């Protein structure tokens, strides 16, 4: 028994320290996963106001002053996320179409910040003409961006901005706008379903504190305050997860029942959960999400009042390449270029799936 005491003390200390450690790790992993599955990989994209697509006009024209297509490097956080896998496809397409040089390289950092930094360093020593980067964290790539600046290689940030260092432009979705448009899409569905004086909508929010959650929530609030007929019935976090959204939606149904006229979800995975809860309760109300996740869009064929605002990584890459080339050609480019999300409803669902997931 006396020998037993140190053993227990050891186990106890070990377990406490370890649990704290894993609680930390687990938390992080969970967040990353929650975001990733939803292809809401816009986690660090903050701000992004202004320049409402105004840049598009300038971009297309002046690109042919260079002798050949520039060699480009694109670095993304992780191909685990569909969002970045789609970026890779778009990049490969640009290569085969000759928009960028055939020796252009795609770098997958496998979610490791140090890998991403060394990827960028490799690209710099390869003397690429243009660097496109979607940073894992805004701060982690600062040194690499500085090196690129020193080497005189222009940098375009995609989807996630960098904290310091000079970038030519920042190409991303505007989450405030996505939130507002999705809420308004929900409103238009509710109006189609039946005329009422006020429409009660519930919101399923993302992970509390994440910038995406705040921005999309702000868009929702803007839409509610701008439209007198829209009434916010309740709002609760579903942590960007289908399962949590399902439980929360069940509780909403218990509490409000038929008062609920529509559901706005801050990502499509939560819309899947809301759909499931409504289905179990034999209710049918409009549900809208954000992201354009394949599994959610596939449900549209059954329900004309389901919709989403899809993010378009392909367009982000194309625009980033165009912008970079315009800069190389000596043109002025916008500091921030907002990629408008695509509204997907039953009408264009099959086109959307065919084009991006076919």
């Amino acid at each position, binding site marked *: 028994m006396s020998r037993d005491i140190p053993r227990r003390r050891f186990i106890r200390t070990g377990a406490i320290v370890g649990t704290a450690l894993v609680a930390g790790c687990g938390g992080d992993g969970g967040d990353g996963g929650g975001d990733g599955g939803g292809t809401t990989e816009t986690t660090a994209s903050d701000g992004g106001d202004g320049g409402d697509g105004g840049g598009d006009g300038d971009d297309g024209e002046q690109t042919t002053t260079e002798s050949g297509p520039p060699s480009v490097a694109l670095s993304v956080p992780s191909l685990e996320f569909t969002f970045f896998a789609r970026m890779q496809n778009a990049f490969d397409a640009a290569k085969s179409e000759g928009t960028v040089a055939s020796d252009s390289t795609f770098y997958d950092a496998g979610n490791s910040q140090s890998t991403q930094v060394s990827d960028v360093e490799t690209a710099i020593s390869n003397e690429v003409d243009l660097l496109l980067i979607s940073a894992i964290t805004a701060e982690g790539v600062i040194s690499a961006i500085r090196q690129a600046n020193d080497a005189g290689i222009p940098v375009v940030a995609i989807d996630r901005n960098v904290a310091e260092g000079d970038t030519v432009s920042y190409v991303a979705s505007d989450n405030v706008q996505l939130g507002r448009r999705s809420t308004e899409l929900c409103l238009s569905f509710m109006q189609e379903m039946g005329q009422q004086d006020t429409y009660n909508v519930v919101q399923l929010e993302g992970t509390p504190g994440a910038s995406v959650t705040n921005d999309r929530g702000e868009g929702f609030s803007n839409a509610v305050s701008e439209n007198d007929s829209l009434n916010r019935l309740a709002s609760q976090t579903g942590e960007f997860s*289908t399962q949590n959204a399902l*439980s929360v939606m069940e509780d909403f149904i218990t509490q409000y029942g038929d008062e609920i006229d529509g559901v706005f979800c801050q990502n499509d995975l939560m819309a899947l959960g809301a759909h499931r809860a409504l289905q179990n309760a034999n209710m049918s109300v409009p549900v809208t999400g954000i992201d354009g996740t394949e599994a959610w869009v596939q449900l549209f064929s059954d329900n004309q009042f389901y919709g989403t605002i899809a993010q378009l990584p392909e367009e982000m890459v194309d625009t980033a390449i165009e912008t970079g080339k315009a800069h190389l050609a000596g043109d002025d480019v916008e500091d921030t270029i907002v990629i408008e999300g695509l509204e997907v409803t039953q009408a264009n669902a099959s086109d959307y799936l065919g084009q991006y997931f076919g």
Partner: protein
Amino acid sequence: MARTAVDFGAAREQVTLEQLGQYGPILGLVGLYVAFTVLNDRFLTVGNQVNVLQQVSIIGIMAIGVTFPILCAEIDLSIAQVMEISGLTIATLAVGARLFEGFAIPVVAAIVVGLSLGGTFGAVSGFVTARFGVPSFMTTLAMLFLADGLGLIVSGNRPIIGLPPSLTALGGSRVFGFPSIVVVFLTLLVVSQLLLSYTKFGLYIYAIGGDRQAAERMGINVPVVRLGTLVISGVFAGIAGLVTLGRLGSAIPTMGSGLLLPPIAAVILGGANLFGGSGNMVGTLVGVLILGVLQNGLNLMGVGPSGQLVAQGIVLMLAVLANVVGQD
């Protein structure tokens, strides 16, 4: 309606009170029931109570599974990821998508493969732990990463929809108007409690959890029992993954995220000793219900995300305090 609702709630509490009057956690649960009944008139209805049971079932099944290693002074940190990969494997095999494109196999076979996979993860970490004396904390942590990565490979990290109805029936249908997922949960709970109470294996778990050296000297085959608890935990995580498919109606690659700590917390909340030797399944049920009822009640009251976290912190602290006071 209201009458039956009250009867339903009261009856369940009575049974548990009789069996477990000596346990503190029950006080916390009763306190929560009283508080939410007063604060919200929809809380204590049959519909909502069934909802709560449905909402806690997945965490509950994982909690039952992880109770075994905890009683044996082990821990299983891989449950959330094992749940994920088992569910994803079953779904992809049954549909014949992603990694198994074109290799669709019958639903029953897919389920067997998925659950065996869960058991295999438990067996690997259990073997290394029992044979080489590596703490289960580390071996199951290794399994956590392994299972997480394999889950992404199997699913291609994209949700899988269009699951066959026979597959989703176990977690998503109703038996006489009662959700099947709850039936699965309660059945597993009863079976596990019987296993603990009336088999040698159950007795050995407590003996090893209480004092491993003493158990060894009494001639108990300690490695086998330690390995066994982790295999059970893995299989239960697999079952949780299976019923999740039914509950969600689809397989989501991230469906296990955030599901590591709640089951373990529920077990401890239910009065089990984190360092082995004491605890039981009914306690685990109470712990799971405390977590579920709290969330459900706060949702009904419309408490926002930040307020919920604050309330959860306070109530959990009070619950574990009641736990200690109740044991004295």
